[in-house]
């Protein structure tokens, strides 16, 4: 896959699935030129732009898109003191978009991700594939060797118990990247020229009890099922760590999904990741994370949520408690993070009161 699909190759689908039920959340500090290429696939949908960095800068949104845009001033105004849980000068601020959305589904994508081509040369409608992933069940309790059994041309293999073939609801769909792979800084430094050219034609459910590194570049989820778990943590300005926002959300999300019997899929769709970030900058951001993840991952692997945690917010508050108890000794940062996790849930509840909510734009 040497290049991304060009705009003219991408053809709009006949039916835009979930047009009124899905928001596309995009964090940006630069510009949104990349949307031009995605236009045939994205135009039917509502966008939530979360502008990071200098709020006095104007972000130009290409003509014809229906959107709401929030900068730091808006975030502070809407959340008041609770805005402390939203990162500044880091794409982690995107989770504000999840909180403020009123839709059932979210698709989030980075502004340096273009439309990829499949091996036949056809432009990939990543959003459509994510929707298919979310609307079909997951199978976390037993691994199907032919991958997603609900895909066209596949099924459950011999030996797969029939009682498990209904699957469970899919909470999240984790897509992948051609061209610049999502490597950490040390790997980038060692292999600066490595490009991902392998198109793996599979979607699979990540088994229950297995954690994974969730990348936020090309991600979709059912906000009603798992939204409150998708907090992207405290990163960027004033924080000792960066580039672990999506990781953190992924570990929390997977533990909660496993507890509640929800599924997480990974694999297709691919996007074309065009920009390699500076590995030295990345190293400075990730440095602490590389050490801390050695403690964080066993923590999540061993985390047990009590039976009475039957909703996502309850699970999340419980996780925050355990983070404070068990990870504070690694670094005081985790104490702050645990508090921020609670603040996040409080803010989520405020913006998303239980009961019917009108479909509306930001105040």
């Amino acid at each position: 896959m040497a290049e991304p699909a060009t705009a003219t190759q991408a053809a709009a689908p006949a039916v835009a699935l979930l047009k009124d039920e899905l928001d596309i959340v995009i964090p940006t500090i630069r510009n949104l030129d990349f949307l031009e290429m995605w236009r045939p696939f994205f135009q039917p949908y509502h966008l939530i732009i979360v502008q990071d960095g200098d709020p006095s800068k104007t972000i130009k949104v290409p003509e014809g898109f229906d959107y709401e845009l929030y900068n730091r001033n808006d975030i502070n105004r809407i959340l008041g003191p609770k805005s402390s849980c939203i990162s500044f000068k880091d794409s982690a601020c995107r989770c504000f978009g999840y909180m403020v959305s009123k839709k059932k589904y979210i698709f989030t994508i980075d502004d340096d991700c273009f439309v990829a081509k499949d091996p036949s040369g056809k432009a990939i409608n990543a959003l459509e594939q994510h929707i298919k992933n979310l609307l079909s069940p997951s199978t976390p309790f037993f691994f199907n060797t032919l991958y997603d059994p609900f895909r066209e041309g596949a099924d459950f293999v011999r030996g797969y118990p029939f009682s498990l073939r209904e699957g469970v609801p899919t909470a999240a769909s984790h897509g992948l990247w051609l061209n610049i792979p999502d490597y950490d800084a040390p790997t980038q430094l060692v292999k600066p020229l490595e490009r991902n050219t392998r198109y793996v034609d599979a979607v699979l459910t990540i088994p229950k009890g297995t954690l994974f590194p969730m990348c936020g570049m090309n991600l979709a989820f059912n906000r009603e099922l798992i939204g409150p778990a998708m907090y992207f943590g405290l990163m960027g300005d004033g924080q000792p760590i960066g580039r672990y926002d999506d990781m953190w959300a992924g570990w929390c999300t997977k533990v909660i999904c496993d507890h509640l019997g929800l599924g997480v899929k990974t694999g297709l769709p691919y996007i074309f990741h065009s920009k390699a970030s500076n590995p030295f900058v990345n190293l400075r951001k990730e440095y602490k994370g590389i050490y801390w993840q050695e403690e964080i991952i066993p923590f999540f692997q061993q985390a047990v949520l009590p039976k009475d945690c039957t909703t996502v917010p309850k699970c999340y508050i419980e996780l925050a408690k355990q983070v404070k108890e068990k990870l504070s000794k690694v670094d005081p940062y985790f104490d702050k993070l645990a508090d921020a996790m609670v603040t996040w849930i409080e803010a989520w509840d405020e913006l998303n009161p239980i009961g019917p909510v009108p479909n509306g734009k930001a105040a």
Partner: protein
Amino acid sequence: MSLSIKDDEIDIVIGALRPDLTSFMNEWRTIFSRFHLIIVKDPDLKEELKIPEGLNLDVYKKPDIDRVVGTSTSTIFSGYSCRYFGYLVSRKKYIISVDDDCYPAKDNKGILVDAVAQHITNLTTPATPFFFNTLYDPFTEGADFVRGYPFSLRSGVQCALSCGLWLNLADYDAPTQALKPEERNSRYVDAVLTVPARTLMPISGINIAFNREVIGPALLPSLRLGGEGKFRWETMEDIWSGMCVKVVCDHLGLGVKTGMPYVWRNDRGDAIASLRKEWEGVKLMEEVVPFFQSVRLSREATTTEDCVAEVANVVKEQLGSKDPMFARAAKAMVDWVKLWKSVGSSTSSPGA
């Protein structure tokens, strides 16, 4: 092919359930010709085997099996289980085993897949069962561990088992294939991945490879359906064996990979006719899966043989009373370990 593996460390074991292996051998010749082959003839097969010339092979038939294990024991090698005899008598480090109705497949670029080379690559590069890598096998060319993958887990563990897949006739059960009689698998997924620790899956015996020195005794003929037949739709022996192997690997800290290589599996048999026989196996899986998911082996079980013996014990205690088939399977497992110790060459201590 890894340069450090010598061709004489590999045995290719083929269970012959059909007499005429001419086209099978000829199709695989370019890939198999460097290696030693062990052909085991299904003891129930009456016709003479037809095998073309020019390959380095040993053929074992009923009289040979009787001679090695005794006439009463040789019945355990009936049908698809005949290949286990090949595993038993092999003295090589790696075994690759494909069903006799499978042929070399072509990849997405139309190039013939060297299934042996891919299996060996899988077995000789580390597995990563403790954390999922979203770019699949990090040791393959052009891939690596992704951001967020803990560095302490990047050296991986030894891979004991490599499970390949099938184009054309996929390994579906009879009800599934009967419901979709025209469905053929045409999707070539260019990936190998490690099956995470404590995750179980149906391990098909159609296209597998393993490190015999490390995990040999755990691949075993034990669960035999009452109506077991000569089509894969009519068996569960490999699925049962595979569950044991995965539990043992998880306990010993060994890896299991799945994905490439693909083989092309020929159309054979009638799913609807097999339905009658296989409903038995389908029902059994409802018990078998939760059972294996709950099995925990003791700290004292440090060798593969010990692990298998322990699993056999738990099968006897927890499943034996539910169906005599399980009680027989448990006994067969215990007998197998004894047989392996007396006839098979010993396993080394599994390395981390």
